[in-house]
């Protein structure tokens, strides 16, 4: 590979960056002026000018790629030759001829099914503890949220080391248990049956703190008079939790469930850094990445991406439908 000095790689990008920024400002001013000349109200013309960057971004970086990837999903495309229309072949192959597809779908769905509820229950527990008028709440909040700000790459390397079969901290700590039960140390990440638990543990470390901070904010928003009213009615701690806290918190929980599911189904960095045994499949985004950028099957990868989108949509819609049963909005009439 060619040697590149720093300036060789910085200056051209910097110049184009200035150019695009300048062009954007000119386009915004130009559009506003043009609309005003065409007789649009000044306020509306300025509004259109201001949102122009986002609208352009929507067209160029969202809508066009969105449509293009749907088209590509019906083609065979290796990026070097033009795409070739093959109809539904990619989708047929996905369901019938790709053993990795089903394994990966299963692993990804199971991961979301375990990670989201466990993460939210743990987070709810922590949030409830923090809501007990504890001293130094700022300190605790800072501590619990900490794993969520760390770079995912550092987190996954750390956990690979923690779960290293021969010398990781986890197996060191579990060593008495292994001796007691007379079993071999667990081969986290390499035993197909243990891949899922290992990822769930790693995922929990990242999410439960972030969720608990959000839930705590939700708890603080519950009006105090509701608890006072419950006290007057002679409600116990549990009754207050079931009849006041949970209903009042349900919209925040709902937000956490939705974002949690969408995030868990798209886990990438964590899975990318761990060599999962083929028998266990892999995570869906890694499957797509591999098809697209390692094997250059851009068409098939697009079909997989569209399938993932449909899965996310269906699950989100199901959760939203079910929300009528369990989410309570105070402002709803």
């Amino acid at each position, binding site marked *: *590979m060619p*040697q*590149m000095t*720093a300036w060789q*790689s910085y200056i051209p*990008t910097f110049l*184009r*960056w200035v150019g*695009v*920024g300048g062009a954007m400002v000119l386009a915004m001013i130009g559009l506003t002026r043009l609309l005003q000349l065409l007789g649009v109200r000044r*306020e*509306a013309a*300025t*509004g259109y000018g*201001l*949102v122009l*960057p986002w609208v352009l*971004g929507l067209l160029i970086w969202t809508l066009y*790629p*969105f449509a293009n*990837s749907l088209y590509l999903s019906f083609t065979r495309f290796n*990026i070097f030759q033009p795409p070739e229309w093959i109809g539904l072949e990619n989708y047929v192959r996905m369901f019938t001829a790709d053993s990795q597809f089903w394994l990966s779908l299963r692993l990804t769905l199971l991961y979301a099914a375990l990670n989201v509820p466990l993460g939210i229950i743990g987070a709810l527990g922590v949030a409830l503890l*923090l809501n*007990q*008028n*504890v*001293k*130094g709440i700022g*300190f605790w909040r*800072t*501590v619990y*949220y*900490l*794993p969520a*700000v*760390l*770079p*995912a*790459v*550092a987190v996954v*390397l*750390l956990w690979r*080391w*923690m779960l290293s079969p*021969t*010398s990781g*901290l986890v197996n060191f700590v579990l060593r008495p248990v292994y001796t007691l039960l007379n079993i071999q140390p667990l081969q986290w990440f390499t035993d197909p049956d243990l891949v899922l638990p290992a990822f769930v543990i790693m995922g929990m470390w990242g999410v439960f703190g*972030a969720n608990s901070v*959000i839930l705590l*904010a939700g708890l603080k928003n519950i009006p105090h008079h509701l608890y006072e009213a419950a006290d007057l009615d002679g409600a116990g701690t549990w009754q207050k939790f079931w009849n006041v806290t949970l209903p009042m918190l349900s919209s925040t929980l709902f*937000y*956490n469930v939705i974002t949690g599911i969408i995030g868990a189904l798209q886990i990438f960095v964590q899975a990318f850094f761990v060599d999962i045994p083929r028998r266990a499949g892999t995570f869906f985004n890694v499957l797509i*990445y591999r098809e*697209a950028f390692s094997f250059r099957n851009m068409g098939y990868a*697009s079909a997989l*991406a*569209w399938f993932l*989108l449909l899965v*996310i949509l269906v699950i*989100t819609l199901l959760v939203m439908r079910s929300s009528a049963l369990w989410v309570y909005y105070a402002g709803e009439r």
Partner: protein
Amino acid sequence: MREMSATTVTVRTPSLSGRRVVGRIVTYGLLVLFSLFVFVPLAFMLSTSLKTEQQLFVWPIQWIPDPVEWRNYPQAFVELGRIAPGLTFWRILGNTLFITALAMVAELVAVSLVAYGFARFRFPGRDTLFVVLLATMMLPGIITLIPTFIIWRELGLINTYDPLTLTAWFGGGAWAIFMLRQFYLTIPVEMEEAAVIDGANTFQIYSRIMLPLIKPALLALGVFIFQGNWNNFMGPLIYINTTQMFPLVLALRFFQESLSNEAPKWHYMMAMSTVMAAPILALYFAAQNYFLEGLTIGAVKG
């Protein structure tokens, strides 16, 4: 800090019954237990990064290694330079900061303008556009990834920093626009009306009145964008091939991959992970309120 002083007052009220004391102890006990779940892996990372290769496998674990091997930090980058010539620590830092700075400046400028447009100006189609904006937040990034890669390839800009920095001019994340718009909406309109009467134009109102007022939100957003770009993995992975151009994330991955054939050098990898995490942690401790408030704005108020 605010909450701390407020809670101290309530806790100091006397008349704690025996049962409440037990409750308190259980509460704090659990809080400490959960915080161990956070701290032990971090301590393990730090402690590993300061060990010699032999100390790695010693049981019981030496939490404070003896001797403390500070040399691991420079040595990790020497080892990296051995497999990737020209990729020094300073070069990696420069690459990472270059990407992060350009993306951050462009996104802050663009987002603050777009959000201003959505918050303060009435125009036909605005609310529809805003719903579309919210909907794009649900879209998995992987869908647009391949066509976006093809666009950059057609432009001949693969293996440059352009894909990682130029798109920020288009307003970046929908979430950022949403958050800033919510913030603009909390600012009273009277100030702008007064400025209009004084003959100020839109840009003057934006730069002289609005920007100073939304500074806290911009700082919060800046912190998030910095963190997002610093931690971004997928983008550099797809667009950057030349090793000398690697930002920290890719350097770490390259290091890990090249060493996985030999014995994994966990002390070096933990040293590099610590280097990668340290600036984010420092930023987090310095600006934690911005992190935490930014996080909850969409969840509780939205």
